[in-house]
């Protein structure tokens, strides 16, 4: 906020936009400026976030790839697994028809949780670079 120049005269009207106030907060916002202006620091920060998010996504994709993707191979290599029964239902039917869906949702839930945490970490670094 600007101080009025003299108390007796009415203050000059200043148009204040919230974003400008936020930007004027100066020093401790350097990281954000670094990001916006793409200095080397900002670039490194962004690359770090992207790497973290991509690594997370790839790791969970591998979990699904192994968890579900190995099934056709398993059934082909060891056909006897197909004849195993639980509750009178053959194992492949249970795994594919029922169990796969909660499994996918669980992986998705994990991803959302961890990806948001990565973003919170990123925001924390950007907002408080010194600490």
């Amino acid at each position: 906020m600007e101080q009025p120049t003299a108390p007796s005269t009415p203050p000059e009207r200043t148009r204040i936009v919230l974003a400008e106030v936020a930007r004027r907060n100066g020093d401790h916002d350097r990281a954000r400026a670094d990001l916006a202006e793409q200095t080397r620091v900002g670039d490194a920060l962004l690359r770090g976030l992207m790497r973290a998010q991509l690594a997370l996504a790839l790791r969970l994709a591998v979990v699904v790839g192994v968890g579900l993707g190995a099934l056709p191979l398993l059934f082909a290599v060891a056909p006897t697994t197909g004849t195993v029964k639980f509750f009178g239902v053959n194992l492949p039917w249970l795994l594919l028809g029922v169990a796969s869906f909660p499994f996918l949702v669980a992986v998705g839930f994990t991803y959302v949780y961890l990806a948001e945490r990565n973003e919170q970490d990123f925001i924390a670094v950007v907002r408080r670079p010194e600490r």
Partner: protein
Amino acid sequence: MDNPYVVPAIVAVTLATVAIGFYGLRLARTTSDFLVASRTVSPTWNAAAIGGEYLSAASFLGIAGLILKYGVDVLWYPVGFAAGYLALLLFVAAPLRRSGAFTLPDFCEVRLHSRRLRKLATAFVVFIGWLYLVPQLQGAGLTLSTVTGAPYFLGALLVGAVVTANVALGGMRAITFVQAFQYWLKLTALAVPAMFLLLHWQADGRPAVAPADGLTFPRDTVVVVEDRAVLTLPDGSSREVAPGEELPFSAGDQVPKVSSVDASSGLDWLLPGDESGDRGLFATYSLILATFLGTMGLPHVLVRFYTNPDGSAARRTTLVVLALVGLFYLLPTLYGVLGRVYTPQLLLTGQTDAVVLLLPGAAVGNGVLGQLLAALVAAGAFAAFLSSSSGLLTSVAGVISTDVLAHASDRGPGQRGSVRDFRVAALVAGLVPVALALNVASLDVSQVVGLAFAVAASSFCPLLVLGIWWRGLTDAGAAAGVLAGGGAAVGAVLMTVVGPPLSGWPATLVAQPAAWTVPLAFAVMVAVSMATRRRTPADVSTTMLRLHAPESLRL
């Protein structure tokens, strides 16, 4: 079939769709309302709408039909249809929303600033949209002729007309409410009859779904032959049958095999893998790849992401969709399995897509309860055609109005077209698939949809994934990859639909192309981008910042 409740049920669903559409029309006042519902749709509504839009005829009718025919191996369809949302969540959801792109062509423009690439993407969006629309309309024809005996073309025309009118008048805002309503309708329409089916099966003393000595007819049945075929009777003898011939079977008779219908039987149906060995495994993996990676490239799915307020909301929406879709896919399997017991005659006629419609009547009987359940299922099926067709049509009309019409009226591409443009585009986008549906031979709904997934997986999936995560992507690389992978997949689709019948490896490679076209697209895209490194957009860092930085930083 004579069921007094079916026609009122279908009329009610159609009227409800139109009514909600008009209610939305009153709310839709601006172009922004029209195209993106002004981004005021909450994640729950949005997720139900995405689910409603996604669960098409292929999910509602097709999966159960395929399971009835081929057994455990096609369970990969529902698993893949659901898992596609996980891939979308992991690699695309939040960055795509943050990119601000409304359609795939928009994304090309935002990321690579190439008009030519934009046009190419538009062409693929329209192709995939129409490829996906045709089986929806054919499914409508099949449903109406199965449950009311009306001529085949009537259903396709009815759905085509209602959807085109609704999209043209109501736009996106109206569609969101319609879709959300239809998700819950579809779930109910399968879940309630499924409970009765299970109770009935239990009361029947749980007849085996894959008896060792072959399937039998549960009651006296007369099958009318439609195609010339060779019938293999249980005693090993065979005889030829001609179209129009009536084959009477009495209860307890074994179901013969027909040469015109390709279906698995006995252990082959119950257990994974089939006689073709390596080719079967290849086809399975190809299907997995197509469905896992194809969802993110479907035009009607992407359009929805822009209606989320921010990237995190896009993520949460996708997770809810995954759960809703997964919940739904528990049901079609049940219909396919019980269809073996109660409607084996479909294995003779080959119209297995009708199993969901016929099963309630066949199992519960033609009393009032059976008729009500059959009407509920028919209403759900209509909801499926209406909602996915609406979503597809909205997105196809969206790209036509922004990229073709806006260009023609010299407003420049990328500018939001006017509401009038959108309406004209909706008409054009609706007429073409109706004409195709009436003139192209009918295939298994799920198989055609599977091909649409393969095309999406080999064109837009690499474009999105590399565009979001790799700075080195260039417009030339992207175009080359889309042309190579997507072009190969389109070629495979055309071969399947209109080409000569193939056998052996060529048939497998063409019927399930994703396992070779997806890696091809990725490889070409990366290689050409590396070769044209100088064409990397100058502002790639800015774009990446926009795609990946959380909105709360307000950069």
